[in-house]
């Protein structure tokens, strides 16, 4: 079999997405079938690659010296690749119904499909150069999606997103340069690349650069001072906020942080240093900050966006613990939060789509009108709070025990932050659920101020929600195999 096949899951969706506007589809239905086929095929390819991953690196092209575009699938890449491959076809299915009433949906689906390829590129990147390239591409390819509405707020949000991302990438680039100059290799190597004598005496400099790089990638992972673009971006259509701003884009940021921590800079260099303390502290602050803002946010989608900010930092916190247990916890949360948050956003989107309601205070008694959506929200919400045995609990348990075991001051502070944040999560999730399920006796039912009287959406929205909700539950109940696999990844065995 040709080694070029690893390119396929990356190039195929980008190409087909770019070609989409050229096909003159006679109806939306034909276009939808085309998009669904492309994403499904890509998913199959991506998952197939995971099971038949090539053992040697595949260099696509060599730019100069060590600057090569190189693909290689390792354990971490498998986790991220599998995660998005599972989610994307469902997300596309959901988007079909949601986008029916929007304009320019051809352009939307074109970029939506291309983003899939780019994200897979990040997952399967074999060296820092390739990851950085796809990382920058991701910003460009998702920008039209954020600005899709082209209203004043949408354009402003798009500009904000752009400015933040490019500024962050500049920081990340500093980290990139140092690995290039001082590291043994650009390729991702478990345990780090700073083995040679060239590093001696420059450890503290490298640690400082690591902090800069984390902050740079942290812009997409919405670490505290650089989070502001995410709630603004909630203005984008829900399929975008759900898939990109809860999974693909933001998780790319968290993924990149795990990459440079464990595979480029290496825990040996960072463990116990000031760099680790700074990153842990920032993550802990973000965890608290996101939850507090979510509690005070009346707009449902923005509330979920703040919740995402908080939860992304769980991952960063787990990764920054620099122990195998911490990395496992971070990766578990990466997976668990993806499923949970995508369902929650789908529910918010379905509510917005079917009833036009955006603010939690208007949603009294919605549970009676939209029982299916509320049930999904309920299950995923419990997962987000971390009620055992939901998936959120398993990851929280792993992160918490890892944090206590690590034992430094910022780590313990972070664990406390995680627990306080879980409490606040309960407040903002139940704030909606109780309103929806137990309306106060004098409360009014939601009126039909929206475009239609509120009711459950059709099967195209329901199916992704049902399947993904089931996944939320299943991941929690049968976490053992996943946890075992991640343990092996975190120990560098895969």
């Amino acid at each position, binding site marked *: 079999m040709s080694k070029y096949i690893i390119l396929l899951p990356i190039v195929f969706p980008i190409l087909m997405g770019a070609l989409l506007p050229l096909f003159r589809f006679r109806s939306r239905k034909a276009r939808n079938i085309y998009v669904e086929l492309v994403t499904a095929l890509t998913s199959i390819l991506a998952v197939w690659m995971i099971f038949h991953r090539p053992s040697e690196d595949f260099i696509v092209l060599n730019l100069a010296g060590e600057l090569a575009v190189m693909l290689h699938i390792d354990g971490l890449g498998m986790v991220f690749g599998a995660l998005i491959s599972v989610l994307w076809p469902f997300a596309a299915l959901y988007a079909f119904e949601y986008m029916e009433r929007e304009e320019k949906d051809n352009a939307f689906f074109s970029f939506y499909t291309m983003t899939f390829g780019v994200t897979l590129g990040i997952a399967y990147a074999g060296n820092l150069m390739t990851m950085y390239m796809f990382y920058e591409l991701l910003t460009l390819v998702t920008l039209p999606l954020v600005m899709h509405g082209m209203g004043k707020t949408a354009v402003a949000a798009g500009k904000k997103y752009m400015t933040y991302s490019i500024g962050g990438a500049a920081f990340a680039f500093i980290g990139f340069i140092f690995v290039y100059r001082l590291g043994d290799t650009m390729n991702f190597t478990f345990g780090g690349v700073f083995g040679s004598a060239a590093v001696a005496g420059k450890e503290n400099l490298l640690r400082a650069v690591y902090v800069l790089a984390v902050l740079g990638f942290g812009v997409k992972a919405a670490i505290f001072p650089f989070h502001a673009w995410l709630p603004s971006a909630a203005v984008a259509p829900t399929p975008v906020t759900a898939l990109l701003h809860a999974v693909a884009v933001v998780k790319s940021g968290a993924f990149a942080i795990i990459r440079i921590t464990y595979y480029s800079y290496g825990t040996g260099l960072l463990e116990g240093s000031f760099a680790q303390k700074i990153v842990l502290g920032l993550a802990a602050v973000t965890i608290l*900050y996101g939850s507090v803002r979510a509690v005070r946010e009346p707009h449902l989608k923005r509330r979920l966006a703040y919740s995402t900010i908080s939860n992304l930092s769980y991952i960063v916190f787990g990764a920054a613990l620099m122990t195998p247990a911490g990395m496992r916890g971070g990766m578990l949360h990466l997976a668990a939060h993806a499923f949970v948050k995508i369902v929650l956003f789908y529910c918010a989107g379905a509510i917005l789509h079917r009833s036009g309601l955006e603010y939690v205070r208007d949603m009294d008694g919605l549970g009676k009108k939209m029982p299916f959506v509320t049930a999904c929200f309920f299950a995923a919400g419990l997962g987000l709070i971390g009620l055992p045995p939901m998936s959120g609990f398993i990851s929280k348990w792993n992160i918490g025990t890892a944090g206590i075991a690590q034992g430094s001051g910022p780590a313990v502070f972070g*664990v406390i932050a995680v627990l306080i944040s879980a409490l606040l999560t309960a407040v903002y999730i139940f704030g909606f659920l109780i309103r929806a399920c137990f309306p106060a006796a004098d409360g009014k039912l939601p009126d039909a101020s929206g475009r239609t009287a509120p009711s459950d959406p059709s099967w195209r929205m329901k199916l992704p929600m049902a399947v993904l909700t089931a996944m939320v539950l299943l991941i929690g109940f049968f976490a053992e195999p996943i946890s075992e696999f991640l343990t092996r990844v975190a120990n560098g065995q895969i």
Partner: protein
Amino acid sequence: MAENLWLTLLLVLPFAGALILCGFCGQGRGRAMYLTADLLAAAEFALALFFAVPVLCGGGYTCRIKELCGFGLSFELDGFRAVWLIILSFMWLTAVVFSKEYMEHHRHVLRYYCFTFLTLGATAGVFLSADLLTTFLFFELMSFTSYVWVAQEETKGALRAAETYLAVAVLGGLVMLMGLFLLYHLTGTLALDGLREACAAVQERGMLLAAGILMLFGFGAKAGMFPLHIWLPKAHPVAPAPASALLSGVLTKAGIFGVILLSGNIMHQEKEFGWLVLFLGAATMLHGAVLGVFSVDLKRTLACSSVSQIGFILVGLGMVNLTGGNALAVNGAFLHAVNHSLIKLVLFLLAGVVYCRLHSLDLTQICGFGRKKPFFLAVFLCGAFAVAGMPLFSGYISKTLLHEAIVEGGELFAGSAGVLLSVTEWVFLVSGGLTAAYMLKLFTVLFLDEPSERVKKCTRNYLSMPVRLLLAVPAGFLLLAGLLPDRILLPAAEQASAFFGAAGAVHGAGAPHWFSMENLSGAGISIGIGIFVYFTVVRQWLRKRDGQETVYVNRLPAWYDLEESVYRPLFLRLLPFLLAGACRLAESVVEKTAWFLSGPLLAAVCRLADKLVAGIVWLISGTMLSEKKPREHLHGAGRIAYCAGRVMDDLVLLLNRTVRRKRPIQKSFVHIFAVGGRRTRRTAGLVARSVSYGLMLAGIGLVITMLYLLLG
């Protein structure tokens, strides 16, 4: 211990039952639903007996499912758990059968039944769990499913109470989780059978104590321990009566289950922990009893009584820890927990009967309901005498054991510790007295006072046959157990003692002379205090005659409510205010720092560059692309532009008057400058907001890097 996977059937049955009810008994099929529910509860009871009876005759079962939930679930059935399994499944059976009558005219009955069975499964899971993670899992599940009970009526009061309940449960759960993190870090295991030894070997005693206190917070919150008891007096009056019986009878005991683990096993070497439990227990005991005396609502009185009785159990558990597993304390705490469950089952169901007929629980409204109802009287008396610790009833046995434990513990400690214990003894006796007082108050209300208008109107038959039967069983047990303590209660307690510590840790004689003068005098003092309080406080101060009617007044000051005057302001006003303030502060700090970091120089350079670009743009548009612009009328110009314009205008005026008299200049420079300035600003703003600005910042970052690389 035999491995027995079928044990999980005890959990699967209720969870599946809830699904069956949900799936097959939709709206409008009431009878089928009631029948299914009854059958399911009966099946669970039969199953419980099937598993528990062999265990009580010796032996035990364990069960471990490694694959589930990431860390595996493990269960165990030993003597202690077997006793509780029987009690809880019996209580559920009674409650479910009674629910049929109680819920007849209520809405959302199906939801109520579903969550009743879900809670049954979760509670059984807590009592069967053999490692703390499994306990925690089912404990949390139980908290969330029982929320629906409290919110069932969907009135404002119910929703508010449910909110409190959920808040306490979630907070307790998370604090407990922190304790679990610490404990797991210290011992490396959470399996109950190895935990005692593992904890004994821990070096960092301070950390262990912290873990224990955090977990006590979690379990205590569910048990109703002071100062976390606030949900109890609010939740019980609004929940349906059968649910109240279960909440108070079983769910609080799930919290006690955890406290037993803590004080008997995990923290058995930490005497500080014992004192903590003892004092919190004493506070709970007294506080609950005082609230009970003042209460003017039937179910609220019973709820306060529950708080108080939980305090008695906690005092016993404190003594278990302090005496290192004295048999008196062990048996007393266990038996009081068992008694309290059955007592509250009886009393809450009676309260449910009252509510069914009168639709009120206000003591003034229900005066005289029990008149000419001999069965009602008999059952009520069994419950009341038992809870007040009257000799010949089971409550007397457990209270005597607890009392003896305190007295015997006092002999172990000298000095101030001994004094503290004798103070505890008096608090114990006074609380017992107050218990007698509020039960006497209820007795007078139900059976002696003149019937109220409401009661006179109600003439229907008040109890159906099955309910009579189900009430008679626990009531009879309370009497029988009190008469034959050595036959019934002590063997059960012996079964349980292993759970309070490793075999051999429980020591001392467990059976005092029940009816010796010494023990009778303890009960006598209590009941004496009770009668005294009743006639001085309740009769004189809390009860008024209003013509024909007797009126009970609430004399409790409004501020004497921990929830309303401390917790709610703290958690809903102060903390959000502080947290949000902190967030806002952090945001502004970040903004300011970003500004400072970019530095006045950098900012100036950037601004200059902006102005340069904007200037060029303006220049081009002003020269090459110039169009005749219509005069713009300005409302305001920048200060500098205005000044410069004025200066220019004055110059022009001067010129016009001197040099250019013949061809005066007509332009107004104020206006020209203002237009120009505004245009520059607008363009600069556009540039600053645009992508190029971000790119420029990125470029500056790159330049700095390049500089470093060149120099380094």
